[in-house]
């Protein structure tokens, strides 16, 4: 029976002048080695098979996918060609793949207006937005002016708008006004936006005649502090023929809100254009709810207009916010914050789970430590097994073979390539994205926007994604998106951008499955791979061409996602949320460095080891682990001095949760008594300052494309960007490492394990980098058993509590000064917390300063 040929797709797009690939395998085992031939059967001869025209499948590898790459010649035509490629072979059912040439989109630098026509009510205004299609080389000023037509139409605001390299993607508003004129004909005018170096854009504005004119409030919404008052003004849009009385009254909502002045406003033919003031007051009430009311402005002969007033609780600007559980993290974590004047004044970080692994390890065989400590974390999986094995190898003074070192680097690299994209989309993404807005996006516009934002990303059917989202919403059960703070004011992506990132969120979920396969190939499974043991690695039999090629195929796919989707996504966030390049930063950084490319550490580390103090990028200090201590003053541990991990103690003593006394299961690690941030930003800053070439190039590229400077890296955004930057650099390095491994193997160098015996006594130390930051294991061997085992993990560095001197932990300090617009939805706090990628679980509630009551805060 003929065998089917399985292709990864039936159709694909090939960019003009570029390549696109699909994969091929057989559906079942052939009776002998079988060749699949790929030929163009019909269509545009510009599209050719670049590689993989002939694919050989054996009885052993028939299920492994092989890649066919098509190329499209750069041609002068503007026609998108199409060709059908036939896949055939002896004993195989013929199949075909349709390739479509995609014309290269050369977007000329142009100004883009949100509309091409605009109606402006007579005596009123209307808005449109203008944005650049491409990043400017320097600041660009856009001028908007009437080019022709009715002079009663004019630019009221925004005649001149400046775009920077940072905000060029953010549309800016221009307001047109239509004067009250005597005529009753609706005039028209053409307005043109122009800027040097950009193609101009125009729109036609039409004056809409008003029969009655309008009641014009200064604002449609108003915040009224509880126990206080707030004002807005009212005028008429055009001169009335006689006096008009406008009544202002509450028509619905919270009775705590009332008009205290300006309930009746009289406008004459003379003063119709002079604003008159309305005062609203909010009664101090006992409830903790922020009330809301609608006030209606009405007058005979005029359409009524509504103003929505919102009562703002005093706690909104001062008070305690407690978050418990903090979600979209690993583990159990709680945050308590004191908010003053709308900004965080103090923060307390509490780790709320203790498992006692260090106690469990004592007295066991040292060889069991890697496999047990690995279970410290299933998210940063592998790294503890790796670090533990290295600590014991240090105690035994054992050098492992090169191949073992490379295999371990590849397994750990796979961990980074899995973990960081998942963090950006699944854990951090909803801090920047409002899914509800994606529902209102125009899918066709999203396609266009995606071409600019992520030109190399694979095409996505945005309409299908939107339909799927709508179906989820229509089902009435939002699943994991339940209780999202839809419509939060801090969310600034356009509907189309929201849709794009949601689509990428789904793509990332699919991609991470493949990233995990890399680890499984060399580690046996993910999470918790099992091939790293004290002495080397066990997976010698899997170090063959078939398995390594499979590894490389997954690696290439993940690398493409990082470069074409993940990094552009981070740039989008950077462009839309530029203020986060100045918020949530910290000063001191510690990186142990990672990925030894030679047997010598730290000299051979791909990501260098070092310390940066006080944001000083001109100096990278060496790391001396003797200066590390762990303070337990504010944790739930037996009191004692701050100790170096080589002599550390882990003796839990529970008392009550009290931020003024003891409030965390985390110890407080310090370096020379200083709190240190660890993680991607620490690694990238140390590498950048040390001049590590791969990282420096990626950082400079990122800064240039976003218009940011190196100073902006000390921020929430810098942390999030550093994560993406190092993912790309590590992915590139992995391709090099695997080539070295292949060369070693083919030259007969196959050793993966070194013999040893466990001594009666010994001490060992290992320094590594988990995706979340610097990780150290310290082992003390006595009677050939584990005597003392101490681990200082990234999240204790970042999320640890205050110490004996009152010095707060890095996240506790980074949160200070962060604004909180709506304490009921402290999105801003979560942005900072998530940017550190915590590996512990927590939650948020609010304690009001005045009443001491604790209320639960709604957090996305």
């Amino acid at each position, binding site marked *: 029976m003929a065998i089917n040929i399985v292709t990864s797709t039936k159709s694909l797009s090939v960019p003009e002048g570029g390549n696109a690939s699909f994969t091929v395998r057989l559906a079942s085992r052939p009776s002998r080695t079988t060749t699949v031939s790929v030929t163009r059967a019909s269509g545009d001869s510009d599209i050719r098979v670049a590689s993989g025209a002939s694919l050989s499948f054996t009885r052993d590898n028939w299920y492994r996918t092989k890649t066919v790459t098509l190329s499209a010649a750069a041609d002068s035509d503007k026609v998108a060609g199409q060709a059908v490629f036939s896949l055939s072979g002896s004993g195989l059912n013929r199949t075909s793949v349709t390739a479509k040439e995609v014309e290269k989109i050369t977007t000329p630098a142009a100004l883009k207006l949100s509309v091409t026509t605009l109606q402006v009510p007579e005596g009123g205004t209307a808005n449109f937005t203008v944005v650049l299609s491409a990043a400017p080389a320097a600041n660009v000023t856009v001028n908007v002016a009437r080019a022709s037509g009715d002079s009663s139409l004019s630019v009221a605001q925004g005649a001149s708008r400046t775009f920077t390299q940072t905000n060029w993607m953010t549309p800016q508003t221009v307001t047109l006004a239509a004067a009250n004129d005597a005529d009753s004909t609706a005039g028209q005018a053409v307005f043109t936006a122009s800027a040097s170096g950009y193609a101009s854009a125009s729109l036609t504005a039409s004056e809409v005649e008003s029969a009655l004119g309008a009641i014009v409030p200064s604002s449609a919404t108003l915040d009224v502090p509880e126990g206080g008052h707030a004002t807005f003004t009212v005028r008429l849009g055009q001169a009335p023929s006689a006096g008009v009385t406008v009544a202002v009254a509450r028509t619905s909502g919270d009775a705590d809100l009332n008009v205290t002045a300006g309930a009746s406003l009289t406008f004459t033919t003379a003063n119709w254009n002079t604003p008159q003031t309305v005062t609203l007051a909010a009664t101090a009430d006992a409830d903790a709810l922020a009330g809301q009311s609608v006030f209606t402005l009405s007058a005979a002969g005029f359409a009524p207009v509504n103003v929505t007033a919102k009562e703002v609780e005093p706690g909104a600007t001062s008070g305690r916010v407690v978050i418990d559980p903090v979600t979209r993290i690993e583990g159990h974590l709680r945050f308590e914050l004191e908010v003053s004047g709308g900004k965080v004044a103090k923060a307390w970080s509490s780790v709320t789970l203790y498992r006692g692994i260090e106690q469990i390890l004592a007295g066991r065989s040292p060889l069991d430590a890697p496999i047990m400590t690995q279970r410290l974390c299933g998210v940063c999986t592998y790294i503890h097994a790796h670090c533990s094995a290295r600590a014991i190898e240090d105690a035994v003074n054992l050098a492992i073979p090169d191949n073992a070192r490379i295999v371990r680097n590849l397994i750990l690299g796979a961990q980074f390539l899995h973990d960081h994209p998942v963090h950006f989309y699944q854990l951090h993404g909803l801090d920047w994205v409002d899914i509800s807005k994606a529902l209102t996006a125009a899918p066709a516009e999203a396609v266009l926007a995606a071409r600019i934002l992520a030109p190399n990303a694979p095409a996505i059917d945005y309409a299908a994604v939107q339909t799927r989202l709508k179906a989820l919403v229509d089902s009435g059960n939002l699943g994991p998106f339940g209780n999202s703070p839809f419509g939060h004011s801090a969310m600034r992506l356009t509907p189309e951008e929201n849709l794009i990132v949601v689509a990428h969120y789904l793509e990332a979920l699919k991609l991470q499955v493949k990233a995990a396969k890399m680890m*499984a190939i060399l580690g046996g499974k993910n999470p918790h791979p*099992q091939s790293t043991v004290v002495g080397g690695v066990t997976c010698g039999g899997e170090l063959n061409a078939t398995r390594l090629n499979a590894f490389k195929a997954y690696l290439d796919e993940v690398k493409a996602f990082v470069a074409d989707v993940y990094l552009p996504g981070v740039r989008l966030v950077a462009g839309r949320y530029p203020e986060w390049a100045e918020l949530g930063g910290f000063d001191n950084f510690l990186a142990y460095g990672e990925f030894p490319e030679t047997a010598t550490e730290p000299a051979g580390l791909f990501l260098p080891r070092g310390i940066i103090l006080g944001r000083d990028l001109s100096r990278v200090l060496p790391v001396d682990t003797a200066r590390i201590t762990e303070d337990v003053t504010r944790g739930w541990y037996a009191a004692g001095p701050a100790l170096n991990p080589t002599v550390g103690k882990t003796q839990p003593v529970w008392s009550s949760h009290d931020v003024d006394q003891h409030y965390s299961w985390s110890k407080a690690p310090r370096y020379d008594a200083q709190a240190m941030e660890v993680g991607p930003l620490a690694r990238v800053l140390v590498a950048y300052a040390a001049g590590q070439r791969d990282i420096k190039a990626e950082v400079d590229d990122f800064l240039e494309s976003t218009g940011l400077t190196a100073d902006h890296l000390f921020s929430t955004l810098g942390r999030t960007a550093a994560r993406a930057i190092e993912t790309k650099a590590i992915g590139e390095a992995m391709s090099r490492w695997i080539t070295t491994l292949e060369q070693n193997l083919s030259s007969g160098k196959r050793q993966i394990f070194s013999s040893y015996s466990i001594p009666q006594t010994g001490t060992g130390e290992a320094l590594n980098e988990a995706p979340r930051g610097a990780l150290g294991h310290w082992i003390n061997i006595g009677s050939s058993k584990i005597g003392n085992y101490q681990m200082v993990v990234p999240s204790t560095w970042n999320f640890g509590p205050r110490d004996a001197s009152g010095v707060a932990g890095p996240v506790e300090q980074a949160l200070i000064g962060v604004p909180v617009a709506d304490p009921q939805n402290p999105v801003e706090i979560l942005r900072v917390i998530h940017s550190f990628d915590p590996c512990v679980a927590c939650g*948020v509630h609010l304690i009001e300063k005045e009443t001491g009551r604790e209320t639960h805060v709604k957090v996305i």
Partner: protein
Amino acid sequence: MPPRTSRLFDPEARGISRRAFLKYCGAVAVALGMEASMAGSIARALTSAKPQVVWLNFSECTGCSESLLRSEGPNVESIIFDVLNLNYHETIMAAAGARATELLEATAAQYAGQFICVVEGSIPTAQNGVFGTIGGKTMLSIAQSIIPKAKYVISFGTCSSYGGLAAAAPNPTGAKGVSAVLGLSNIINIPGCPPNPFNLVSTLANYLVAGQMPALDSKGRPTFAYGQTVHAQCTKPYGCLEGYNCKGKTTYGNCPTQKFNGESWCVQVEHQCIGCTEPNFWDANAPFYNTMWASMFATYRKDAQAHPLNNAAFCTPCHGSSTYSSRKQQYGSTFATRMHSEHEMTSRLNTNVGCANCHTAPGGTKIEIDD
């Protein structure tokens, strides 16, 4: 009650061919001991009924959630959107703080007796549970208030099934599995460190198709997945590892047939099974590396040679470098027989224990000793 039916899952729109999906469902059917023709029913069940689910994370490492994320067949994106109404899962949910807790409590109240509760991690019980709190409540009290309201409880992973690592001696936090704390009869244990997501999806498929729990063994595990020992199903890709303290003979699970991540499993990377699906394995099976492990491994793996392959190297780790030549001379033509005898191989030959000291594969026929 929101509509229970959803046709969101259209595999082809996701780039998963209908055939591939049906094939997966066929594998589920076979695993569950159903006729292969049930694949269609399973496919329908996985794509239409959406049970209400809450997922509780207690004393854990989140590795079980990560394992679910790696699901293929229906991948996690489909599971989240199309297969389940996953109303509470701290690792992925948008809501945080009280807004999150509210979803947990609302689901438990509104769907009492109907929802499925998946538990990850053990429950710290010492000192009334102070070692683990969420939202100011102990995990113990959350378990006691939420879990008994569920129609079925799935303990996903060894920690929630039997206590796992936190419960290893001396168990500082009094960690226990869900059964041990609550003693309910509707608990399905899907142990493993991590557990295989295929076994969770198959258990859900069984529930959605048949409306009931799968058949369980004496340790509360579905027999479709945990009915045979690892050893009985093992293809021994690089030889049997029993001599390396492999626990495949006393460990029940389908690792050799389902593998992990569609790629591999522990024995395929030549690491012995540590017995992670069995209660108390962290204590009962430790130490995981027997005394000779380090030297045995070096000699067993020809590719892993620590030293140039010469015969003396086999004896050196245990006896010193001069032993080989002296014994070789002393025993002459009876060398191999005497070696077997001195190392008690005669009684062990059937189990391969110890062969790996001298042979390229444990029990393998290729002899590297030049006798």
